[in-house]
């Protein structure tokens, strides 16, 4: 019996669930989520890699599909013939790197696309924002994605890193957390993106490590699950958003791994997939982040996930991207 007792992760069922995703074509949800199909594939693929079943989907087919999502501007859309957006550019790059096909796309074109979304001429307080697409919405998520995507191609020096770091610093709140933009309420998913961005930039010194770690630890509720902000409901995906940030901060041990595992495992659908909480309908997003969350607390049998890139550590190492770890403040050793 492992330290997690009889908490069983239904590995085979989840693999089947992911494989069957593109077969549910008569479901309303299927075509309603067409615009984020690429992210759906990324979520399914990461889950499979962490479950150590990477061959469960057809790699060549996925590579061809993802390449088909790249547009003339160098960015990727959520599906074939969809306009480019940073979110889907990130998912595409993550997928191709996991499948060892990153060299099949032109990194210069992707870099150019990402740089076009950086707003260097509209600075206030020395802050540089990054938009998600030509529509102009800006958010700390996009700041992270810009840095992360360019790191895949080793072109992140072309970004105004200092300006972006100032923007992220501006989004840090009185509770130590981070919001979607300066002033915005602290939210665990935004905390992850800001902390991960600072990790890539080698600027984790910006973080109020103790206060933020405390805020993150407090996301764990009595049931073992985590919420995204005070007084909100627990949700399986926060096992990732909270866990990854704590991992980067070298404070993973501040939460109860046993209770978290209990919660995530209880949110499984016996027919496959994981839901946001016990009793709800499973979906690929929660399946991905539930499994990633379990990987972070070293649930047995899962491959280790990198807390910055949300991909297997082995892939991140192969790409040379694990070097963010060398830039974590030395005083932070556990």
């Amino acid at each position: 019996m492992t330290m997690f007792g009889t908490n069983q992760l239904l590995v085979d069922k989840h693999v089947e669930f992911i494989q069957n995703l593109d077969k549910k074509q008569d479901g309303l949800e299927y075509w309603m989520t067409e615009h984020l199909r690429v992210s759906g594939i990324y979520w399914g693929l990461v889950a499979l890699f962490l479950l150590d079943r990477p061959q469960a989907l057809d790699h060549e087919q996925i590579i061809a599909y993802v390449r088909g999502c790249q547009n003339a501007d160098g960015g990727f859309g959520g599906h074939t013939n969809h306009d480019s957006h940073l979110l889907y550019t990130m998912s595409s790059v993550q997928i191709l790197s996991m499948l060892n096909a990153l060299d099949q796309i032109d990194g210069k074109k992707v870099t150019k696309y990402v740089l076009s979304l950086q707003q260097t001429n509209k600075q206030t307080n020395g802050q540089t924002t990054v938009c998600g697409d030509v529509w102009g919405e800006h958010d700390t998520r996009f700041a992270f994605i810009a840095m992360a995507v360019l790191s895949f191609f080793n072109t992140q020096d072309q970004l105004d890193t200092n300006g972006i770091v100032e923007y992220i610093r501006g989004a840090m709140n009185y509770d130590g957390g981070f919001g979607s933009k300066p002033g915005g309420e602290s939210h665990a998913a935004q905390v992850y993106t800001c902390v991960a961005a600072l990790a890539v930039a080698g600027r984790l010194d910006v973080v109020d490590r103790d206060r933020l770690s405390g805020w993150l630890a407090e996301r764990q509720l009595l049931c073992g699950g985590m919420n995204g902000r005070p007084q909100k409901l627990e949700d399986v995906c926060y096992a990732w958003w909270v866990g990854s940030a704590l991992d980067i901060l070298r404070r993973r041990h501040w939460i109860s791994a046993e209770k978290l595992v209990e919660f995530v495992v209880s949110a499984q659908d016996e027919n496959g997939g994981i839901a946001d909480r016990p009793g709800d309908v499973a979906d690929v997003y929660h399946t991905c982040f539930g499994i990633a969350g379990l990987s972070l607390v070293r649930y047995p049998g899962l491959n280790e996930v990198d807390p910055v890139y949300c991909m297997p550590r082995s892939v991140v190492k192969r790409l040379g991207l694990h070097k963010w770890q060398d830039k974590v403040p030395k005083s932070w050793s556990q």
Partner: protein
Amino acid sequence: MRIEGSEQVEEAVSLAQQAEWQDITPIEQEEGEGSMCPIAYTDEYRELMGYLRAVMAVGEVSERALALTARVIEENPGHYTVWVYRKRLVEELESDIAEELDWVCDISCKFPKNYQLWHHRESLVTRLWAPSNALLVSEDQRITNPVLRRELQFLDAAIDEDSKNFHAWSYRQWLVSTYALWTQELAFVDTMINQDVRNNSAWNQRYFAILANRNPSVVRLEADVAKSEIEYVVEHIKLAPNNDSPWSYVTGLLLRHAPSMLYTDLLPRIKQLAADNAYQAAMTLTPFYWSALLDIYEQQSADHPDLKKQLIDESSAICDQLASETDIIHCRYWNFRKTSLDTC
């Protein structure tokens, strides 16, 4: 100009049957041989998307294209590309912005969780009343102006529907910040906090309202403002002592902008509350009271090293209590806090 009535008639008849659309060949979604993601549509949506792809491919700017985007958004408001196209159409057709804002309201009613609509609204409002013009008049004149009054009403409805709607609060911050509506904001925040003292979004907004766009790293809070905030927080702690937000707000606010007041002013007030018969039990049971004491003692011993030993002893006991009784789920965190006390 859109003619409402004809749109309703059009819905019943497929586009392929309509004279207006005869010149367009819809572009079917590519689902090649062995496509990994063949997608099934309802027939109606499939047709709408086919025509939309066709007009987008040629960059058509027309009323019929605008009506088409409305229909697609009404089926699938998460489709971000359509919003971008619609924004462009609204601009180039010089559509009535007020009507467009009304239409966005309808979408919001149907899809309260949709977030694209907020950004669309932002671009419409700035076109309707440029901030540079708005800032030439007084704040009173700004809030009574129909443009901003409508936005505030829209926000009221959205926040009423979901008081923690992340995007609504974010939009509100953009509106208040861009149009400098600071004076009314604190009153609004107060209303929201009184409606639900546990609403963390409202407490976050309080900080936003107090800071009023000043750079946090250079703001020192005036003593009377800090005292008044402490009183406000204590009154709201009384309503629900075991509530994260006010504790987090006041310790965060003072730590950043008036650190010594943590122990000169906040400490005596909360100790007084904890000694009050009416609140003693609740205060003892809530981890947030004890956690606040830890934060306060940490600051106090940093400022007054002569008190350090005594404060560390007290803090150590608090950590033990939290880890073993008051907040067991977070025991690992409290055990760490205890070990780090000496290094403060």
